[in-house]
């Protein structure tokens, strides 16, 4: 923990860090690039709105889903987005508790990423309901019809898991943000910014007794967030594993899903880290050492996910069940074999380059590998859903799934739903934790 290895260049001053990081919202350095990115993101968001309007008007029949593939893109993207969210919480919470110093430069945008990824995930089950305006039926409210929700159903667990995850992530994010909002308030010169940061920082003044209570609340919330991440994604996997469908009914699912989630999430953190670092010239805070650690984590979680792949095959073979083995055969050699092999290719082949230190420390290489992982994990979720469903127990109900334009447009649209608030957050709040970076710098100088 405190071997005083240098992760931040020590020559920096605390005041310099505060000015640099609060300067990003206060004197936005990359106005034009931000406007272009925002225009792109807004176009995607508009596409989502059109897709959702079409969906609400005409129903889920506009998607390529059928019987038996009645879950496809909606749930597959739900799992993918939720998985991306998980790395944010893991970086923030788990590494806070274990005292990993390198988290400080990454945790803020990782948490921000989590928040919006969970929102993207959360809308999918609602859209998939068929009649989304009845989503409130999932809540236990005293209905005049005298009906209560079914708490023994995994779909009911879903709503509690996602709502809790979103709320706790938001609380954790905001607790960590308060001192930095106060720092931005104190640097702000424009009246509008003073009011904005003045109100959002709640009048934080950095009093010793405040810090004491704050630290306790922050660390305790972190301690709660770690099992929460594991439980939420295990719960998602139980949606599958609790069913009898071949290819789903497996005990490896909860850990396999959680690790896959961490894998795709860390890939997204790496993408955002490289982009923001290049965009705002944050090379002094998100250093090559940070990329190095991210690369190592990506490699480790990737290899663990690879173990899940191996175990899935083993599980099917060991079970000796005809349907399990047929699904396995379908995956590796069926009509959707390209999805399976695509997942293997994108997830694990470029990943091996991360064994080399030089590759891990190169922003471009890490960016490309991470994009490949994001695609690979997307294919993996598709593989789990479609290749299991399209041929179930009854030959008479076999049917293939082909995504329609609306499947794709809804998916691309959620990327807009993710990017628009994320870009707004980049514009409005310090994207790297100011006080934690200063704390680390102080510790490093002390240890020197």
């Amino acid at each position: 923990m405190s071997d005083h290895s240098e992760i931040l260049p020590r020559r920096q001053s605390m005041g310099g860090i505060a000015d640099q990081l609060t300067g990003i919202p206060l004197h936005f350095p990359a106005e034009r690039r931000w406007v272009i990115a925002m225009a792109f993101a807004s176009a995607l968001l508009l596409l989502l709105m059109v897709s959702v309007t079409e969906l609400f008007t005409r129903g889920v029949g506009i998607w390529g889903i059928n019987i038996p593939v009645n879950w496809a893109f909606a749930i597959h993207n739900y799992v993918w987005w939720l998985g991306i969210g998980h790395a944010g919480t893991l970086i923030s919470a788990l590494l806070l508790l274990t005292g990993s110093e390198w988290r400080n430069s990454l945790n803020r945008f990782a948490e921000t990423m989590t928040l919006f990824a969970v929102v993207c995930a959360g809308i999918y089950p609602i859209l998939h309901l068929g009649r989304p305006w009845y989503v409130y039926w999932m809540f236990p409210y005293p209905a005049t019809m005298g009906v209560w929700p079914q708490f023994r159903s995994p779909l009911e667990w879903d709503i509690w898991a996602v709502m809790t995850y979103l709320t706790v992530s938001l609380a954790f994010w905001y607790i960590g943000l308060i001192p930095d909002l106060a720092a931005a308030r104190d640097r702000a010169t424009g009246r509008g910014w003073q009011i904005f940061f003045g109100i959002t920082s709640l009048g934080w003044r950095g009093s010793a007794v405040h810090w004491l209570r704050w630290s306790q609340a922050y660390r305790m919330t972190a301690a709660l967030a770690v099992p929460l991440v594991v439980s939420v994604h295990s719960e998602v996997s139980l949606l599958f594993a609790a069913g009898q469908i071949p290819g789903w009914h497996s005990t490896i699912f909860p850990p396999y899903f959680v690790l896959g989630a961490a894998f795709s999430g860390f890939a997204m953190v790496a993408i955002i880290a490289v982009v923001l670092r290049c965009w705002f010239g944050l090379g002094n805070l998100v250093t090559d050492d940070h990329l190095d650690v991210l690369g190592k984590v990506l490699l480790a979680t990737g290899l663990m996910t690879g173990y899940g792949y191996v175990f899935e095959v083993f599980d099917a073979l060991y079970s000796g069940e005809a349907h399990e083995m047929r699904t396995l055969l379908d995956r590796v050699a069926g009509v959707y074999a390209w999805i399976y092999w695509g997942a293997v290719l994108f997830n694990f082949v470029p990943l091996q380059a991360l064994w080399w230190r030089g590759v891990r420390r190169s922003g471009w290489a890490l960016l490309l590998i991470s994009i490949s992982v994001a695609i690979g994990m997307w294919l993996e979720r598709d593989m789990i859903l479609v290749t299991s469903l399209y041929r179930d127990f009854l030959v008479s109900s076999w049917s293939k799934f082909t995504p329609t334009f609306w499947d794709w447009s809804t998916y691309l649209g959620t990327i807009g739903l993710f990017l628009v608030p994320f870009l707004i957050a980049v514009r409005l709040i310090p994207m790297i934790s100011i006080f934690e970076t200063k704390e680390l710098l102080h510790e490093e100088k002390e240890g020197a």
Partner: protein
Amino acid sequence: MAERAYGMLGEFESPEALLAAARYARAAGYRELDAFTPFPVEGLAQVLKIPRPWISLVGLIGTLAGAGTALLMQMFVSYDYPLNVGGRPIYALSAFAVVTFELTILCSALAMLIVMLWQNGLPRLNYPVFAAPRFHLASKDRFFLCVKSEDPMFDDREIAAFLTGLGAASVERVPS
């Protein structure tokens, strides 16, 4: 100087200087002390004799309340609207585990956040120390020690001399 003071604010350049100053101030008999720092400074709470916070206790209470509420809610719902799905038990505790776990965490986290803010007296957008011209540096790279006016030994001039003697870069009187 007719106005009542909130306290005297001394500015220090490093956490070590602040800790040393706080120690001297305690030794000199000052009891109503507060410090303002850009990040949590280790050991400051012990020097200032701040009592241990009980936020974690609140978290525990929230945990129990969340778990209890979740279990009772699910059992009541299953009792009030029993559904026989494949002959499975109505009170299926293992099936209730997920929602119970989620609500446990939700209630605990929210309880801690709310109690932390409430105990800290936040949100309170204005506070006397904000009036000090150099206080904005407390969120940047300066460390402030404040002797509050409630202190029985409070005396403007004496404290100013005392803080300057400890190496304070600036000493300001904060009006209340």
